[in-house]
C-alpha cells in the first residue's frame, strides 16, 4: 500500500513538472525574440561596461579630489606661515620704528668702551704785524695742539706743543720751531687733590695756565709775564680746590717743586739769570742739574661766584730758589692776581708781579710789573645788529720796570704799553682779533706803535 502511494506521488510530481515545463517556455517564446534578447543582452553588457567605466572615472575623481585636498592643506599651511612671517615682520618694523623714534640712551655708558680715551685739543693762530718803521709782514703761523690721554677715571697724561714758523732775516728762508710747552702726568688722588709731575705750567699768577691763543684776548703776552717769571718748570706739584659752602665758592691751592731758574753761563752775574732753561739735563748730554737746589712755590686763591657768569677770583702766589750754580743767590717772585666777570659780556683781570734776585756783580735786583685788561662784548647792548653783536672791544695797560735789563743790557729799564683792539667772533672758538699798541720806553729798541691782526681758532 505504501509503495502504491509513493508511486502515485512520483506520477503526480512528474505530471506537474511536465506541465510547468510545458507552460513556461510556451509563454516566453511568445513575448521576447532572440534578437530582442540579444539586443537586451548587448545593452546589459554595454551598461555593465559603462558602470565599470564610471567606477574607474569615479575612482580617478576621488583620487584627484584627495590630491586637491592635500594641496589645499599644504597651501593653507603655507598661507599660515606667510601670515605669521608678515606679522613678525610688521612687529619688527614697528619695534624698529619705535626704537628709531626714541633717543638712544646715553647714560649709563659702557665703561669698557670709554674708560680709555685719546683726545686732541689746542689752538692755532695766524698773525700779521705792521710795526712802526718796519715793513708789515705775515709774522706768525702757530699750531699748538694739546694731546690728552686718559687712562681710567683719574689718570691723565697731557702734553702741549707749540709749532711756529719764523722768517730768517739774515740767513734766508724760514725756520720752524717746535717747543714743548708742557708735558705732565696727572693723578687725581681725591676730589680735592691732584698730583702732577713733568713739565708743568707754573701757577705763578694765572696767565701761564690761561694764556693760550684763543683764551687770551690779545695776540701777545703782557710785558711783565714774559720778562719776569718762568712759564713752566720740570718737577712735581700738588694742586686742587675745596668748596667753601654750598654756593660754589672755592679755595684753590697749589704747591710745587721744580728745577727753577738757573744761570746761563754758570756764574752768579746778573745778566746770566735764565728763567726757563733749567731742565736737569744739559744739551751736551750731561745728566746733571745745573745746580743742586730746586725751587719751590705755590698759589692760594679764592673763587667767589655770585651766580653763573658773575664771579671774582683773587689769588696770591710765590716762588723761590737758588738760581746760580754755586747756590749763593736766591731768586724770589710774588704775584697777586685778580679776575672779575660781570655777566657773559664783561671781563676784567690783572696781575702784579714782583721779583728779586741776588748777583755777584750788581747786588740785589728788584723787578716789577703789572697789567690790567678788560673786554666788553657788544652783544650786551642788545642793538640787534649781527656784526656788532659778534664784536668785543678790549683794552689793556701793562708795565714792566727794573733796574737792569740783562737781555737788552739797559739800566733803569721802564716800559709802558697801551693796547686797544677788538675781537670779532665768527664762532665762540674762531676769533679775528685786531690790536693797536702804543709803547713808551726808555729802551730805544722798543717799537713805538704796532698793529697786530690775528686769526685764532680753539679746537
Amino acid at each position, binding site marked *: 500500500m505504501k509503495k502504491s502511494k509513493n508511486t502515485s506521488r512520483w506520477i503526480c510530481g512528474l505530471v506537474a513538472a511536465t506541465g510547468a515545463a510545458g507552460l513556461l517556455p510556451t509563454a516566453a517564446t511568445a513575448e521576447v525574440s532572440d534578437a530582442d534578447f540579444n539586443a537586451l543582452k548587448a545593452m546589459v553588457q554595454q551598461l555593465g561596461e559603462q558602470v565599470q567605466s564610471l567606477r574607474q572615472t569615479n575612482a580617478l575623481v576621488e583620487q584627484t579630489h584627495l590630491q586637491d585636498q592635500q594641496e589645499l592643506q599644504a597651501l593653507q599651511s603655507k598661507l599660515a606661515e606667510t601670515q605669521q612671517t608678515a606679522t613678525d615682520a610688521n612687529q619688527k618694523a614697528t619695534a624698529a620704528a619705535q626704537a628709531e623714534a626714541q633717543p638712544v640712551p646715553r647714560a649709563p655708558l659702557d665703561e669698557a668702551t*670709554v674708560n680709555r680715551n685719546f683726545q686732541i685739543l689746542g689752538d692755532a693762530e695766524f698773525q700779521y704785524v705792521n710795526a712802526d718803521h718796519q715793513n708789515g709782514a705775515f709774522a706768525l703761523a702757530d699750531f699748538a695742539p694739546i694731546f690728552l690721554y686718559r687712562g681710567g677715571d683719574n689718570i691723565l697724561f697731557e702734553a702741549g706743543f707749540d709749532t711756529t714758523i719764523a722768517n730768517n732775516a739774515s740767513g734766508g728762508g724760514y725756520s720752524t720751531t717746535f717747543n714743548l710747552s708742557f708735558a705732565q702726568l696727572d693723578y687725581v688722588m681725591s*676730589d680735592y687733590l691732584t698730583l702732577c709731575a713733568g713739565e708743568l705750567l707754573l701757577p705763578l699768577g694765572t696767565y701761564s695756565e690761561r694764556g693760550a691763543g684763543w683764551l687770551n684776548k690779545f695776540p701777545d703776552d703782557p710785558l711783565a709775564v714774559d720778562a719776569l717769571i718762568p712759564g713752566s718748570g720740570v718737577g712735581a706739584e700738588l694742586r686742587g680746590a675745596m668748596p667753601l659752602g654750598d654756593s660754589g665758592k*672755592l679755595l684753590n691751592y697749589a704747591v710745587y717743586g721744580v728745577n727753577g731758574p738757573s744761570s746761563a753761563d754758570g756764574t752768579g752775574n746778573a745778566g746770566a739769570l735764565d728763567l726757563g732753561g733749567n731742565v736737569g739735563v744739559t744739551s751736551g748730554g750731561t745728566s746733571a742739574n745745573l745746580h743742586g737746589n730746586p725751587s719751590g712755590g705755590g698759589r692760594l686763591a679764592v673763587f667767589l661766584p655770585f651766580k653763573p657768569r658773575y664771579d671774582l677770583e683773587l689769588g696770591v702766589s710765590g716762588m723761590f730758589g737758588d738760581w746760580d750754580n754755586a747756590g749763593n743767590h*736766591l731768586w724770589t717772585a710774588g704775584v697777586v692776581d685778580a679776575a672779575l666777570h660781570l655777566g657773559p659780556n664783561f671781563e676784567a683781570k690783572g696781575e702784579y708781579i714782583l721779583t728779586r734776585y741776588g748777583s755777584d756783580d750788581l747786588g740785589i735786583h728788584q723787578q716789577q710789573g703789572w697789567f690790567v685788561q678788560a673786554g666788553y662784548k657788544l652783544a650786551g647792548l642788545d642793538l640787534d645788529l649781527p656784526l656788532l653783536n659778534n664784536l668785543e672791544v678790549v683794552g689793556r695797560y701793562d708795565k714792566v720796570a727794573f733796574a737792569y735789563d740783562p737781555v737788552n743790557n739797559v739800566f733803569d729799564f721802564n716800559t709802558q704799553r697801551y693796547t686797544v683792539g677788538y675781537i670779532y667772533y665768527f664762532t*665762540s672758538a674762531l676769533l679775528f682779533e685786531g690790536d693797536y699798541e702804543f709803547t713808551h720806553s726808555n729802551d730805544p729798541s722798543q717799537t713805538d706803535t704796532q698793529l697786530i691782526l690775528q686769526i685764532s681758532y680753539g679746537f
Partner: protein
Amino acid sequence: MNPFLKIDVRRAAGFALLAATLLCGGLTTSLCSAGPDTNAAPAAASSPAASPATRHQLTGAELYSIHCNRCHPERYPTERTAAQWKTIMLHMQVRANIPGQQARLILQYLQENSGR
C-alpha cells in the same frame, strides 16, 4: 748779603713748603676717607647723602657756566661725544682746579647733552 740770614731764609722757606705740603696732604687724607669715591658714576655721586660737598643746590649746567666762563667762551655740549667730554673734564678738573664732585656734575650735564 748776610750768609746766615740767607740760610735762615732758605730754611724758613723750605719748612714753609714742607709744612704746606704736609698740611695739604693731611687735609686731603682726612677728606678722602669721608669723601665720595671718585670712581662712582655721576648719578650715584649726586646722591644727597654722599658728602657735605653734595649738599649744594647748583646743577651741572650752572656749574658749567660758572667754571667755563672763567677762562673761555662756553662750548656747546654737542661738540663732543660723551667719551670725549670725560677726558676733557678730567683735563679741566686739573687745569681749572674744580673739585671732583662739581666736575662729576658738569660731566653728567655734558654727557646727557653730548653729540652721541
